[in-house]
């Protein structure tokens, strides 16, 4: 009796799961993103961007004469869940390409699924490990954290700041950037004198900042982190009147950050960002200008929220994919993969992307722009 009930239940469940899968048609693109959970800050604008752009593309007639069908799953930032969704996208939804992996953890957990299934995968996470060593089917759009570090250290060096303190979030983003910054800091002749961390939901960082401030010889401070941490660090920084140049990471590159930290506390902060934040400040002949202005306008109109760099990553991933589809001329994973690898001179929010068999990111440092917060807005540092 019990056996019978359970089998029936399982059958029903399988039926429900089966029904949940969409009917076969169109060009199917999958995504597993962290729309909720600790990385929702990143995953939410990414998901919104994808949905928005796919609607726009379909309204304009689709790609290769077919509509794009987007299947987005929310992995909540849990790599295990992401892995299950990855399998589902490949095995059940039978997508031709996948965008996602909001965080490094989720991306690393799922990339093998796509490598095994030979389906192109474009990650939206920061760590260099995702594309180094190069795996045939794995690509990514954001600058690596290492590039962000390099951009910051180059700016420090130019200002003659050689002894710094670091304060990093202990979450994936902060820890990853912290690790990569330490790997290259020596190349710039910069020394990290103080190295502190904070938890992702901490309410006060004055003890850590007091220690950095009290360290003899520190000339600047770098905060690697995203979410509320950097806003609180910035406010505590002002409260303690540390008075040294403060650098933030690309993790906070959005207007929301200035609002949260307060314009006065954020004044003078420098951080590497993309053209997206400074669309209006770009010279008229900048190749990125029309693109970022259009994306910013449509995102803000559709969601009522300011754009963030992260939404831009998703934007670029979809553009790379659509561009590859057009060049491949058919919606087959192998052809798409080859076309993605051949991407050349494609303008995105993060910069101009040129991929190769050795480079599955295709961005250089020039695309990163050093920004400074000035009077509650952004300013380009030359």
């Amino acid at each position, binding site marked *: *009796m*019990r*056996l019978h*009930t*359970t*089998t029936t239940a*399982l*059958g029903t*469940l*399988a039926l*429900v*799961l*089966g029904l*949940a899968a969409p009917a076969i048609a169109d060009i199917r693109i999958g995504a597993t993103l962290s*729309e*909720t959970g600790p990385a929702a800050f990143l995953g939410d604008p990414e998901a919104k961007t994808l949905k928005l752009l796919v609607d726009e593309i379909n309204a304009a007639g689709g790609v290769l004469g077919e509509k794009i069908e987007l299947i987005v*799953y*929310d992995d909540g*930032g*849990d*790599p*295990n*869940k992401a*892995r*299950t969704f990855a*399998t*589902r996208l*490949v*095995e*059940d939804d039978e997508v031709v390409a996948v965008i996602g992996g909001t965080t*490094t*953890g989720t991306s*690393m*957990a799922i990339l*093998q699924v796509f490598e*095994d299934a030979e389906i192109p995968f474009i990650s939206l996470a920061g*760590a260099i*490990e995702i594309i180094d060593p190069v795996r045939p089917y794995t690509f990514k759009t954001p600058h690596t954290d290492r590039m962000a570090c390099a951009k910051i250290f180059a700016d420090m060096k130019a200002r003659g700041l050689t002894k710094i303190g670091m304060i990093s979030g*202990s*979450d*994936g983003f902060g*820890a*990853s950037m912290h*690790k990569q910054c330490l790997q290259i800091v020596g190349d710039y002749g910069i020394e990290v004198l103080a190295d502190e961390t904070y938890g992702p939901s901490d309410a006060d960082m004055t003890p850590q900042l007091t220690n950095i401030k009290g360290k003899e010889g520190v000339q600047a401070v770098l905060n690697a982190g995203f979410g509320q941490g950097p806003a609180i660090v910035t406010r505590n920084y002002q409260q303690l009147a540390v008075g040294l140049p403060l650098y933030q990471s690309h993790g906070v590159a959005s207007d929301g950050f200035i609002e949260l930290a307060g314009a006065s506390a954020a004044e003078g902060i420098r951080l590497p960002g993309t053209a997206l934040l400074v669309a209006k400040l770009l010279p008229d002949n900048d190749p990125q200008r029309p693109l970022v202005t259009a994306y910013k306008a449509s995102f803000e109109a559709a969601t009522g929220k300011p754009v963030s760099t992260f939404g831009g990553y998703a934007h670029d991933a979809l553009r790379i994919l659509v561009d590859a589809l057009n060049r491949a001329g058919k919606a087959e994973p192998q052809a798409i993969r080859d076309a993605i690898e051949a991407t050349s001179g494609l303008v995105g929010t993060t910069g101009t992307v040129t991929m190769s068999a050795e480079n599955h990111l295709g961005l250089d440092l020039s695309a990163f722009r050093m920004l400074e917060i000035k009077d509650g807005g952004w300013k380009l540092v030359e």
Partner: protein
Amino acid sequence: MRLSSKTTTLLALAALIALAPLFFPSSYYFRVGSLIFVNGLAVTGLVVLTGYAGQISLGHAGFVGIGAYACALAPVHLGLNPIAAAVVGAALSGGIAWLVGRPILRLKGYYLAVASLGFGALVSMVLANEAQVTGGPDGMTVPDPGLRALLKSAGLDLSNSAFWYAFSGIVLVIGAWLALNLYHSPTGRALRALHGSEVAARTVGVDVAGFKLRAFVISAFYASLSGSLLALQNKFITPDVAGYMHSIELVTMTVLGGAGSVLGAICGAMILTTLPQVLTVFQEYEQVMLGLVMMLVMIFMRDGLLPSLSRKIRGRGK
């Protein structure tokens, strides 16, 4: 011949695992199935701890984490085969459970909950902070144990998902068999006795502290093996497996399905593992639905889904 309830349960479970693939439209269902078994294993351990002995733990993901990272670290540092590493991990988890269990299990109710939660938090903090060893929050890769290749050379070529489905399914059936054995054994009786009344259990000679500790260690073994299985089939592991949310998830599975019964708790694992997959239909209402399901089941079926349902069915039969 009338089969004992133990045999019926085991047969039902084994048949379910063996026959379910007949209904699978794609190999993605193998993945979901093997996740159910992995969670089911941890949850079976919690049945021993919570269902039999009546002790709460909000930190068992800590042991899951130890088992998972053992499979990632021991092959690299000790040169062990990942399967052997899983055994080492289980031994380590058992040892740690034995050490921390004694003081923690003196506490009762919510105090036990917070102490076990603290233990789990400590494990996940170490895993996240010691980035040199564990790769930090970004996680680390787990080597392949080569079992699939072994089977292939023996002429049995299974897809990755199907292999892990079968492997975790077998481990789960063994785990369930052990837990069911325990239920009707002198040890199981002692555990259930101290659950019913600690003072009465003492007066009939049960070493309450010692038996709680045994249940704790056994459940740590289960959790650790569950973590190892997860790490082996995902081939990549992050500290999230050791986190507070995972502990809560495991307890919820146990209680939702019915902490007092192995099959019930495994049902709980099945429901909570498949629910997020089914709920994707609801998109942003996923969390709302999950919360509602948890509340409704616990309000209207306080002994858990399976015991409440089977009671209802039996009640109708009378």
